């Protein structure tokens, strides 16, 4: 890393930054890889890979337990990562719980908070655009408590309908679950406005930040949310690590999801007391390497600059959306403007699996399927779609390759 272009005081070009990602230095099916699936998981920079390797190689010890030197170093690195990641999302370290990712974070809220606090007849507001991980936990919590799901429809363009949301609040609304950025439409939801509406009714706001934290400067304290979930692997970090932010008063009234080692204060034969927040939510040996890797990832993203990353990914997605719209037979979903880092589309008469297969034969990786958002697919009246998503290591050349690749799809299936 001594030759890193991220040395202090420099502003590396995007092409230079791409060289920090070893996975990009390969050909796939005879073509240089164009990776357009970062919304599923991002590539990892050398700094993150090195941090994970260093832990396993040099100080692979458990945290918060032993007194020996390596354990001390591991604990220090794990907690330093917590401080770093918390700072990255504008939170205090003791309000950040390390989880295995967005799914576990949302389940922790659904099990630990919602099941404890929801009453029969209470209402959970959400949209049909939610990822399954911000939908199924609420379905299950509703079943368990007798609460109901209330869907707030999107505008025809695919944006959150704030007027409809305002109208959907009742005296029984206890919880609002919403993505910060849609993983299909690329829309950014006005979380601050939602929080304002919800808090007027004493409803708790849970935000799925899986697609926003990697791409936007995020401050949970500015947003004012009650809970905020995100995944490390979509933001240059390792898989199996993520976080849940909770307002201190909310975390205090949340039950742990996992009981056992590491999360207790005192245990006798009949009962136990819990460790302080956030440790009470981290039962068992945590993903130490993952947390350290995520710390390295946010350090990397900070050095590049989240404002720059946001502008870059957005510009690429916007250009891709505009150029794809021009292609014969291609339908692009989502609003025409204010698009975050992704473009979801279909090619007339060609199934997305086939689109993705032909693109893969040209070394272009995109996602095809329902994107874990089947209710949204139903709303859009499609079975599935293809999605190209962009990140800091993508360039305009990648958009060119995608457009050329889709022309090839047309040729191949039009034959």
């Amino acid at each position, binding site marked *: 890393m001594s030759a890193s272009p991220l040395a202090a005081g420099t502003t590396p070009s995007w092409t230079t930054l791409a060289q920090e990602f070893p996975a990009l230095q390969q050909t*796939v*099916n005879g073509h240089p890889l164009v990776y357009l699936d970062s919304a599923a998981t991002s590539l990892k920079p050398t700094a993150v890979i090195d941090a994970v390797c260093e832990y396993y190689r040099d100080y692979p010890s458990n945290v918060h337990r032993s007194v020996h030197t390596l354990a001390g170093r591991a604990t220090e690195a794990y907690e330093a990562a917590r401080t770093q990641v918390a700072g990255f999302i504008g939170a205090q370290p003791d309000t950040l719980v390390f989880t295995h990712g967005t799914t576990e974070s949302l389940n922790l809220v659904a099990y630990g908070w919602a099941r404890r606090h929801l009453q029969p007849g209470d209402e959970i507001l959400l949209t049909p655009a939610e990822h399954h991980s911000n939908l199924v936990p609420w379905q299950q919590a509703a079943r368990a408590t007798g609460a109901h799901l209330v869907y707030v429809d999107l505008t025809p363009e695919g944006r959150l309908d704030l007027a409809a949301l305002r109208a959907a609040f009742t005296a029984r609304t206890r919880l609002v679950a919403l993505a910060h950025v849609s993983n299909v439409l690329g829309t950014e939801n006005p979380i601050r406005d939602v929080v304002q509406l919800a808090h007027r009714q004493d409803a708790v706001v849970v935000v799925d930040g899986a697609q926003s934290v990697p791409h936007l400067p995020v401050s949970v304290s500015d947003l004012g949310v009650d809970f905020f979930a995100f995944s490390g692997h979509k933001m240059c970090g390792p898989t199996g690590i993520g976080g849940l932010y909770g307002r201190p008063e909310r975390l205090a009234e949340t039950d742990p999801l996992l009981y056992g080692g590491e999360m207790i204060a005192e245990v006798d034969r009949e009962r136990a007391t819990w460790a302080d927040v956030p440790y009470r939510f981290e039962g068992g040996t945590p993903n130490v390497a993952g947390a350290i890797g995520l710390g390295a990832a946010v350090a990397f993203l900070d050095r590049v600059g989240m404002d720059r990353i946001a502008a870059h990914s957005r510009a690429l997605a916007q250009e891709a959306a505009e150029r794809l719209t021009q292609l014969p037979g291609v339908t692009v979903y989502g609003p025409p403007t204010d698009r975050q880092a992704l473009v979801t589309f279909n090619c007339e008469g*060609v*199934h*997305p*699996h*086939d689109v993705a*297969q*032909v693109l893969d*034969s040209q070394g272009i990786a995109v996602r*095809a*399927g*329902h994107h874990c958002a*089947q209710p949204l*697919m139903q709303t859009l009246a499609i*079975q*599935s779609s293809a999605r190209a998503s962009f990140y800091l290591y993508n360039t305009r050349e990648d958009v060119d390759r995608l457009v050329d690749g889709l022309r090839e799809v047309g040729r*191949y*299936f039009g*034959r």
Partner: protein
Amino acid sequence: MKWGDILGANLDELYREVILDHYQNPRRMGTLPEPTHSMGLHNPTCGDKIAVDLRVEDGRITDYRFSGHGCSISMASASMLGDAVVGKPVPEATAVARGFVHFLTNPTGQGAPPGDLEALGGVRKFPARVKCATLAHNALMEALAARGGRAEPH
């Protein structure tokens, strides 16, 4: 299947002409008014669904229809399966479907499947597409395994 084999695979080995023909001109697409056996299956990776309707008379498959949405591979495979099983006794039809799944999922799978189904052999080099190619076959096997009645769709 080694990764190197996948990298060496040519797109034309997957999308043979006969597959695209079945995709664009599917045979026996639709539903049966009075099926004796039915089963609908999802491909969980993409949400695609294929339902198979069968009429079994005197232990023989006398009619077959498939319906649903899917990619070229899953739809072509469902179309080809009808040709391969109509007129066959139930055990033989089940053997066709089971043999096809084995052919695609076992690298050393012996015995080319009958009829146009053989053209789907290229799927063996694209493991991500095996689920697509076998969806109708699994639906047919499950429909027939639910003896004497309609199987509930999943």
